[in-house]
């Protein structure tokens, strides 16, 4: 039986460890990826993921389903932690991503694809946080504008304008990178 996040949360607050494990397994991926894309640091992403679910244990009773779904609630906690860490340290360390799905292309194409993805990743993490979080939520985690607005606690129009501005900055960065590579 596939219980809703909200049902699992109710069981968690009653002390059901299996419900906690089920919710964690269902939602840790998006939370972890969001934290990773925001901070570009594996250790930070791991810490944030842990803090998010601990915060859920402590403050899960504050979740209000009328303000959004539980995943948005988790993203909201992750966002707060990520922004706090970004404020503390602007120096980003390179992150080692493991590609679990080796491509079927030849080695050269695979390397080119990896390089391109890595360039985009670096461009995303270099965005100012207010644009980065909108880009990560909407383009990398596929949230709707409305869902992103709930997480970011801003109007949908603001999300749209941040995305537009974010794409513009990304284009400039990626063009700059491409030109740099050609020289």
């Amino acid at each position, binding site marked *: 039986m596939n219980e809703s996040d909200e049902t699992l949360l109710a069981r968690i607050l009653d*002390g059901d*460890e299996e419900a*906690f*494990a089920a919710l*964690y*397994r269902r939602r*840790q*991926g998006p*939370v*972890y*990826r969001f934290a*990773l*894309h925001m901070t570009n640091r594996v250790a930070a*992403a*791991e810490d944030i*993921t*842990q803090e998010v*679910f*601990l915060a859920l*244990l402590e403050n899960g009773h504050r979740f209000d389903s009328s303000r959004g779904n539980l995943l948005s609630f988790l993203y909201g906690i992750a966002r707060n932690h990520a922004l706090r860490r970004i404020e503390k340290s602007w120096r980003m360390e390179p992150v080692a*991503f*493991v*590609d*679990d*799905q080796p491509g079927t292309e030849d080695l050269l194409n695979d390397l080119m*694809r*990896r390089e*391109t*993805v890595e360039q*985009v*990743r670096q461009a*995303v993490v270099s965005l100012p946080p207010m644009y980065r979080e909108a*880009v990560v939520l909407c*383009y*990398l*985690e*596929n949230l709707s504008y409305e869902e992103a607005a709930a997480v970011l606690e801003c109007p949908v129009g603001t999300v749209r304008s941040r995305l537009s501005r974010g*794409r513009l900055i*990304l*284009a400039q960065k*990626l*063009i700059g990178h491409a030109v740099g590579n050609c020289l």
Partner: protein
Amino acid sequence: MSDDSIQDLLRALAEADASTEAPPEIEMRLRKKFRSRKRRRAWQGIAQWALWAPLVPAAAAVVMLFVFVHRKPAVAPVSPVSINTPALPYLEQVVPPQPEEIVTDFFPLMHPAPPFGRGKLLRVELPASAMKMVGLPVHEEHLADAVQADVLVGEEGLPRAIRFVKFDIK
């Protein structure tokens, strides 16, 4: 670079990272914390009870003392008019009669008595000489003895009537 190209590149990044997940040790750490938190909360509950439990008898004693100190004078029912006063239609506080009590009729204390609307019945202790004042026979040697009486007090605060109580010892 067009807007579509940017979105394509972002899509490629999303696909590349789609299977990225937190390492399994985080779940283990969280489950451990979940269990320790659950234990801690259980102990907190016990500790709270252990902290307050000894105070329960003391609190009960305080409440009983408070009730004892602030209790109102006993109030007994009034059977209307065995006295020459207007009828006693309504009393605010009425206590069920004590079976071992024997009471006299009411004796009016005001002549003439103004109209009586409502009042209270107060149980008081008086010297037996008070019985003599209303015409009841009291032996001289018992005039100073204490007797119990019910005084009917009107809502204006004046004593309207009195009856005397005798306890029938069975």
